[in-house]
């Protein structure tokens, strides 16, 4: 890992921490969860999880997660993703401008 990579990682952690402390992390997280519930994504992922447990005949968390996560991520509607991304970007631009 280069010094630059390390710096980038630290900055990323710093931003995340600020997001949490300002209460914005919870706000955006709740909004994302609500959107996903409204569009049926939550139920889709539950169904996908049950099917994966049955197909692979396992209830092991890590094994099931490895199969479910990439598909669940790709199942989010473009609308929801864009909306949440807009909010995160707006928040980031806010911090960057207050110098």
């Amino acid at each position, binding site marked *: 890992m280069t010094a*630059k990579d390390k710096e*980038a990682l630290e*900055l*990323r952690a*710093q*931003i*995340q921490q*600020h*997001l949490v402390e300002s209460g914005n*992390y919870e706000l*955006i*997280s709740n909004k*994302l*969860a609500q959107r*996903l519930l409204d569009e049926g994504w*939550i139920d889709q*992922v*539950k169904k996908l*999880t*049950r099917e994966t*447990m049955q197909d692979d005949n396992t*209830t*092991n*968390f890590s094994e*099931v*997660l490895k199969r*479910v*996560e990439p598909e*669940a*991520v790709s199942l*989010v509607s473009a609308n929801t*993703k864009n909306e*949440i*991304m807009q909010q*995160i*970007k707006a928040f*980031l*631009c806010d*911090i*960057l401008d*207050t*110098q």
Partner: protein
Amino acid sequence: MTLGRDAMTPLTVLSVSETIYHNLLTSIVQDIVSRTTSRQQLQDARYPGLAPLHHDQRGALDVYGRPKPQEASVYFRCPNCSRDLSANRFAAHLERCMSRGARRG
């Protein structure tokens, strides 16, 4: 917290946003998978070999895979007069049976 624009290189607002979005989303996925797998583990431990409920595409069989029973062939014992009656006649029977009892009392 104050950050200079310079501090963002080589990161971009977009890439950091993507990472945050991905973190938010994957923690929701982890939550769902964790709940669903532990629920299944609990069910397996309590009721080993439990068969899933039956699903009939045609809608003819119930959740146990059985056809609809003929109600006329099911009998109830009336608690008022102790006679055995066909289940689909029970309400009509009660109307007469109970009012007879009330008149008598």
